[in-house]
Each structure stands twice: as C-alpha cells, then as structure tokens.
C-alpha cells in the first residue's frame, strides 16, 4: 500500500489530517505528547506521508509497528524506543498497539532550552533515526518519565515547557547511555561546531523547500558558504574535520535518501522527481543516480514494488 504523499510539516496539522483528536493541551506546535493508544486508532493503521519539522520520540511499551523515514525502515516491537530526525519523509504503520507514547518537539523548542541542539546529546549523525530495545528496568523508568511529562503537559504550571524540556533531555541522556552500552562505543566521534550545525540546518531547509516546490535549485558548497558568510574552503575544512564527511557527501547522501523514498513510497514519475531536485534533464538524473548507487532508479522502484507485492501476498 502506497501512503498518500503530503508535505504537511506541523504536528497539529498532521494529527488533524489523519482525523485524530487534537487535544486542547496541545497548545502549541513546539511540543506535544500523546498517549497514542488512547486516541482510538483503528488497526491496522497506515499513516499518510508527512514531512515533519519536528523530532519524534516514540516509546513502545506494548505494540508492533513500522516507521519508514527516508530510505530507512525501523521495525518497532514491545519495549522499543525510537527517535527520528525532522526534515525527511516520514510514514508509519501499526498492526498492534496497546501502550505507545509519542513525544514530538520542534527544533526551536529544543534550541531554546538546549542551545547546542540535539546533536550534542544524542549522536544521530547522518541517520534518520535510532531505535533500540530496552531492558525492562530502563523501560519502566522511561514509561514513568513519560507519564510525568504527560502530567506536566496537561497541567497549568507556569514553567511547564522548561520542565518538559528538562525531562526530555534526561531521557535522551539515558538513551545515549544505552547506545554506548549496546555499541560498546566510547565518548568519541563527532565534534560539534556551530558551523556544522548551521550548515546542516541550511541543507535541510533547502531540501524542504525543494520538496514543497518553493525553491528549484539544490544548494552546493558555494551557496552554503555564502549563506553562512564564510569562505568556501573554510566551510569544507570545518565540516570534513568535524564529521569525517565532506560537504558534498552530506548533500549527496541526503539527496539519494530523498529520491529513494519517493521511488519506493510514492507514484511520482521520474520526470517529476528529477525536476523537484533541480535536475535540468532526465539523462543527467539517471546517470547521477546510477553513479551514486550503482543502480538505475527504475530498477529500484520495480524491485521494491515486486518485493512489497510478495510481502502482501505472503500475509
């Protein structure tokens, strides 16, 4: 089943679009918490495709579902948590849902209470999300904190945003610790620099605009450097030394990720997709895609359709 493609990006618009109740306590677009299992969703459920401006943090105590973000697919089972990045196509489906909490927060919300942004706490890198299963004890803690956030959200405390941000940050720390434990990593890798954060933000904005049709050119190193008022070489140097990836690698990866999603989960024609991302002619689009992925765009779409048909006939 191909989800309906929308470019809705605000949290409340998304809920309203799915004909779900928009509770009164969700009084701004910056932050929201939902007890998803209490919303009266009929199962199995397939959401339309959104392009959220917010991070989604989902805690599945009991339930089975799938998140598709960009080119990544995350299978969710009981005792799983997942955090997903904004500015990518996003669709979800659920086959079972007994206890699921969903917390969403805008980038603005986070930077107001956490000036350095989420990358400082939680290293998502270039990935669209991170999901893991938690031991029972940690899960209990997460669930308890979720309820605390919910209670704060429905209360009328004057500094409730600050409290909620504080509790969210706390959960993110614990998730990060969990990640260290499972991956056996030391506190290393990405160093953070405001330039990198600003660059990635601009890149994501550029993609959002391309997708919504507000903008028709894909920004490359030169445009990014101009936008930040710094020298092109300096930008390249900072980005590659902090992230071990070059500016063009970032842009290409994101571009391929977006294209792959559209190929798999939408029925847009090649021509439309190519035009959307600023390719002037179709041949260049084909050859670009092929050099980056060693695969033609048409065959990706065909393979996926074939695969998903097999899957659905299998069930």
């Amino acid at each position, binding site marked *: 089943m191909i989800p309906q493609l929308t470019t809705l990006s605000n949290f409340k618009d998304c809920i309203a679009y799915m004909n779900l109740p928009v509770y009164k306590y969700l009084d701004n677009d910056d932050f929201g918490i939902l007890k998803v299992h209490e919303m009266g969703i009929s199962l199995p459920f397939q959401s339309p495709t959104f392009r959220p401006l917010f991070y989604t943090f989902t805690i599945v105590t009991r339930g089975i579902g799938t998140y598709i973000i960009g080119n990544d697919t995350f299978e969710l089972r009981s005792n799983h948590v997942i955090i997903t990045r904004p500015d990518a196509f996003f669709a979800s489906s659920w086959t079972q849902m007994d206890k699921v909490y969903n917390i969403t927060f805008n980038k603005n919300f986070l930077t107001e*209470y*956490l*000036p*350095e942004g989420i990358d*400082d*706490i939680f290293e998502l890198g270039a990935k669209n999300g991170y999901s893991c299963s938690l031991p029972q004890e940690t899960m209990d803690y997460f669930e308890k904190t979720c309820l605390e956030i919910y209670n704060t959200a429905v209360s009328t*405390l*004057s*500094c409730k945003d*600050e*409290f909620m941000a*504080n*509790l969210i*940050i*706390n959960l993110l*720390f614990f998730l*990060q*610790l969990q990640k*260290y434990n499972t991956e056996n990593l*030391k*506190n290393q890798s990405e*160093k953070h*620099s*405001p*330039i990198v954060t600003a660059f990635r933000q601009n890149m994501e904005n550029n993609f959002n605009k391309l997708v919504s049709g507000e903008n028709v050119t894909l920004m490359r190193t030169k445009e990014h450097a101009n936008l930040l008022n710094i020298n092109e070489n300096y930008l390249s140097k*900072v980005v590659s030394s*902090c992230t071990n990836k070059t500016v063009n690698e970032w842009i290409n990866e994101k571009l391929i990720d977006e294209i792959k999603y559209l190929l798999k989960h939408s029925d847009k024609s090649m021509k439309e997709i190519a035009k959307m991302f600023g390719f002037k002619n179709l041949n260049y689009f084909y050859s670009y895609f092929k050099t980056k992925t060693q695969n033609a765009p048409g065959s990706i779409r065909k393979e996926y359709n074939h695969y998903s048909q097999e899957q659905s006939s299998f069930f």
Partner: protein
Amino acid sequence: MENDKKQKFTDFYETVKIMGNELSDGHIGNEEFSFVNSKILHREHELPWSTPLFYTTFFSIGFVIDAYGKIIVDKLPFNIKPGMLFVNKPGELQQLTWDVMNESYGLCFTENFISKYAGISIYKTFPFLLFERQIPLHTTMEMQEELKKILLQIVYELKRDSPLKNKICANLLTRFLLRIKQEYWEGYAIHSPEIRDPDIVKNFIQNMEYHYDQLLKGKVSHILHIKDYAKMQQLHENYLSSVLKEKTGKTGGQLIAEKTLNAAKFLIADSRFSIKEISYMLGFSYLSYFSIFFKKHTGHSPVDYRKKNLQ
C-alpha cells in the same frame, strides 16, 4: 569584624575541609559540582559543630529535612529548622552551625557548571539566584518528597560515574532549581537596569550581567570598566570599589575580569569568531594583551584552549 577572620574558599578541597574534613560518601563530586550529606559528615558526638566565617565562590543549596542549627549570611542570622531550604550565592559571607543533625543535604555548584553542561544561563533562567537576597524558604512535605527524589537520582549518577555523568547531573540540578523557581519565584522578572536600587552590590551585578548578556548576543561591542559602572549608579568609582571589596571580598576589577574570562571561554568554544575578533569584542586593544590575560587566568593560550575544546 576583623579582616583576618574572613576566609575565602576557592579550592574544592578547602571546601571539603570546611564542610567537615573528609572526602567520603558524605561529600561526593568535584570542584564544580558536589553533593553533601551532612548526616554522614557530622556524627553525633561531634555536635554542635560550626564552620569559621567564609566566602564561597560557588552557589550552594542547603536542604534541611530534620536538623537544627544556625546560619549567618551577610551578617544576618537565621535559625535552621526542619523543612527549611536555603540558597546562597557566591561571594556571600557565611557561617554555618549545626546543633542537631538527623537529615540534611547540600548541593554546591558553580555558574560555569550549569552553563557548560546544561547550556543554561543563570542570568536568563534563574535570575533570582543572582539578584535576590536569599532568605530561608519553607518546604511542604510534598515538595520535600519531590526534591529528595531528585537528590537520590543525583547521588546515584555521581556514584555510577557514567560517561555522561556531568551532563545528567546538570540536568537533574536544573530540575531541582526549576522546582524551586516554580514554587517560590513564579513570575519573577529582572528589574530593568535603569531602575535604581538601594543595594549597591546588587545593582552593580545586575548592570554587569546585563552588559555581558548583551555582549554575548553581539549587541554591544565594548567592555565597561569600574568607572563606567560607577557612573551608571551615580557613585564615585573609589566608593563603588570599596563597597564591593567589603561586601564580596573581591575588587571590582577582579569581578569584571572573572566575568570577562567566562565570556572569553564561551566565545572561544564557539568557533564562529576568530581569536582576534573575540579580543576586540571583549575590549582588548591588542591581541597579545588578550592572550596574556587569558593565559594568566587559565594556564592555556586562547588557541590551545580552542583546540582542546575541539578534541
């Protein structure tokens, strides 16, 4: 009061000494953030027990559940009773005496700790900590329960020693302070710097905090000297200096230098500005002056500091 009786504690280990002379379960943490369990520090046979008069360089929170004693802050004495919460800011002259000790905890933290690990500016989020004379607060049973829960989590994190220890502790500390803010300082706003306040020190700190806040936002690009602050309060600079020296134990120049150093650290960690730009922003006319100033106070040159921060 004679001058030689006043002591000042800048070093963590000296603080440990003053708080009860042992580095054990009763006092865990480091020079930026530490937790005190007074019950373990002060055994029954040592009571009553009191500290000499001392100045601190950190914020401290005392959370009394069941204990009796006395605290003198800026020459004002208060009796400590169960259910009391007191918050002290750096530079306050204080003396603490315990008579009966059943359950009481303390937290010590520096401004740097909370801004470094929680990204929170005390000036913006908890202005009451900087500007208000702290009188002891009374806590309800419910509030005590909640605060104690947070404290237990802090102790757990301090002992667990995970790679994110400092950040999680800063996060929990923020929650602790937010509870206090919600309960006692709801709707508190900073007075605009134009309004004159009879308290000279408070006024000076307010002017200074405001100025540096603007400086970091890039709205002003020069630094103020003691002379300028004196003019703002319509005082003579010598008079302002002597008041500051008497009340805080530091000269105005020292206070300004400390603040400048913190601003410099913050700006250097942010790689958008070159060292040269930063030195002009902070009012140094030559880059070398800035380097010397920075090296004198931190032991690193600005460039080294930035490199270290990026590693």
